[in-house]
């Protein structure tokens, strides 16, 4: 029994199924992020945990207790909404105290609690203002303050940072992480931003099309995606996914990629790279996946890697970005992005010698989109 168990939970609206059978277990103190593009079912799942949506079939348990029929208010959860959902007619103080009032918390205790969270979130100066008079960041704090007063077993966040500007978003992200470290409360957090997912979570559930595609630690999700969707969704710039063919080479299997001029690049893909047995796959069409940081210049390649391979490719575009330089080439009929050191000598229109870190490369089945190796 974990802290939060989601067991075979599904959700349908009439004939339309928006969430397929889902199984997730969350341990106490974990920070689980549900990430995926809009319409993937992540918000529905969160609302089901909150009790704002019914569970069509399956079960949701908190501390082993079935929650399906329990009212939201009795689940001992707190939730922070994307739009903050601050009551516009109440002051900040009223907003924070409303929930406690509903739970029948006596007034002095409420006051004490308000003072506590106001201190914690530095919102004391605005306690008597109305939400309309606050900035986005301030509203965000108030929304969190409101959630905090509940001393909940479980915190639910529904895209809480998506309405903030880029800088504020980074700041608030850090604050949420701090808060989690300080309070140790279990959190389920929904976002469509994969960076938020990677930075905040202890575990991530990547969702798409009403299914959990992969559930794992940030490291597993990033480095060992189970399919093309997870591989492509996580990371920025996202992983290059290029059409390729497997060929039997001299020292084992090789991956063959087409250059724009129809000549081929061949990269060994052998024992050093993968445990998978590819021996009888000669001539098979695959999708070759390599992250931009594994497609670099010779000095930029990880020295520890056992499988650096080089190839000359024509450079299309060079984009210096300060600490790095991003280079676009055409490979396997598609744009591929490489991440070079800032001072790498790549020039648009000329060929450049790229280092492929094949330890970090992977292969997918173009039909099933699942990972082959």
């Amino acid at each position, binding site marked *: 029994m974990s802290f939060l168990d989601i067991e075979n939970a599904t959700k349908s*609206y009439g004939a339309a199924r928006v969430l397929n059978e889902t199984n997730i277990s969350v341990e106490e103190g974990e920070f689980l992020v549900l990430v995926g593009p809009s319409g993937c079912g992540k918000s529905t799942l969160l609302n089901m945990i909150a*009790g*704002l*949506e*019914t569970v069509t079939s399956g079960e949701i348990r908190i501390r082993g207790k079935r929650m399906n*029929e329990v*009212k*939201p208010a009795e689940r001992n959860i707190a939730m922070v909404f994307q739009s903050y959902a601050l009551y516009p007619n109440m002051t900040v103080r009223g907003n924070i105290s409303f929930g406690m009032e509903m739970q029948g918390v006596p007034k002095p205790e409420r006051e004490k609690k308000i003072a506590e969270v106001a201190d914690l979130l530095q919102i004391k100066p605005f306690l008597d203002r109305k939400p309309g008079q606050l900035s986005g960041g301030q509203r965000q704090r108030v929304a969190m303050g409101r959630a905090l007063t509940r001393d909940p077993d479980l915190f639910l966040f529904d895209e809480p940072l998506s309405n903030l500007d880029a800088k504020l978003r980074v700041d608030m992200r850090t604050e949420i992480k701090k808060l989690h470290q300080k309070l140790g409360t279990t959190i389920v957090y929904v976002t469509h931003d994969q960076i938020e997912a990677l930075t905040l979570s202890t575990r991530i559930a990547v969702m798409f099309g009403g299914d959990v595609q992969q559930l794992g630690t940030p490291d597993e999700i990033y480095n060992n995606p189970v399919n093309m969707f997870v591989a492509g969704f996580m990371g920025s710039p996202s992983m290059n996914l290029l059409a390729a063919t497997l060929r039997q080479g001299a020292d084992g299997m090789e991956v063959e990629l087409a250059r724009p001029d129809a000549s081929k690049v061949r990269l060994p893909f052998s024992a050093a790279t993968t445990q998978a047995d590819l021996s009888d796959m000669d001539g098979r069409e695959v999708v070759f996946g390599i992250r931009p940081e594994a497609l670099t210049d010779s000095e930029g390649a990880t020295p520890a890697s056992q499988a650096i391979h080089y190839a000359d490719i024509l450079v299309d575009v060079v984009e210096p970005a300060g600490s790095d330089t991003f280079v676009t080439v055409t490979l396997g009929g598609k744009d591929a992005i490489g991440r070079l050191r800032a001072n790498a000598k790549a020039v648009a229109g000329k060929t450049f010698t790229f280092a492929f870190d094949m330890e970090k490369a992977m292969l997918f089945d173009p039909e099933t989109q699942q990972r082959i190796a």
Partner: protein
Amino acid sequence: MPSSLHNPGKSIRGGVQDFLPRLVLSPTIALTLVFTYGFILFTTYLSFSNSGMLPSYDLVGWANYTRLFKLRAWSIATTNLLIFGVLYIGICAVLGLLLAILLDQRIRAEGFIRTVYLYPMALSFIVTGVAWKWILDPGIGLEAVMHDWGFTSFQFRWIKDRDMAIYTIVIAAVWQTSGFVMATFLAGLRGIDREMLHAAEVDGASTFALYRRIVIPQLRPAFLSAFVVLAHMAIKSYDLVIALTNGGPGISTEMPATFMYSYTFTRNQMGVGAASAEIMLLTIVAIIVPYLWSELRGNKQ
């Protein structure tokens, strides 16, 4: 706001809370069932009966309908309703929206102007009809005033003209209700999030584009309210016609509402009155139901 109506609260379960919403709705449903639909059925029955001064239950088939369609007053009434309805609803909606938008520009004396636009609703047409009658009367009203001021060629005698009198009713009706329509739109405008507008402005939208592309589409529910209210007023326009022209000159400004009232109560031909009510209801169904259908279904997604 893509998901405003997205089955939000299918949530609280168990016990009273589960059927509380339906419980709350049920008195209204019961009242509507009896006092709208029940009475419509009753009227349908009457329209096939030989009811005269009071309801009677002897059926006479389609006699009332055939009589109804032979009456010139009825065909005049329906034509008038068409002219009046289209002009009145159209002008009120456009004017109401325009005034609401203008009034939403942080106007200094908003409260005062709003009240000025609204007040015609407050006055009973029993009396304002007299004032309008005077204003429109060429002998003492606008035309006379213009003549006094030296514009002797000015002519405005629609109210005395059989072909134009219906338009004077439009003028007075617009005067009475457009302020309220303005208020409906104003409420809608005030419900729209300001930040979104700022965002659109930052995006470089011109004021015109801002309203056309962003604001007005969000006023759809307000349009629905306005339309229903206006259609209701158009169909039920009774006081107005009685006070202003009393159906005249001749019977040129007869309207279905005055016709219905006249036959049901004054002329003691309740059967014919009921038949005319049935035709009105069917017309309403034909016009309103498709609109409601598209509007409500559209909202559901």
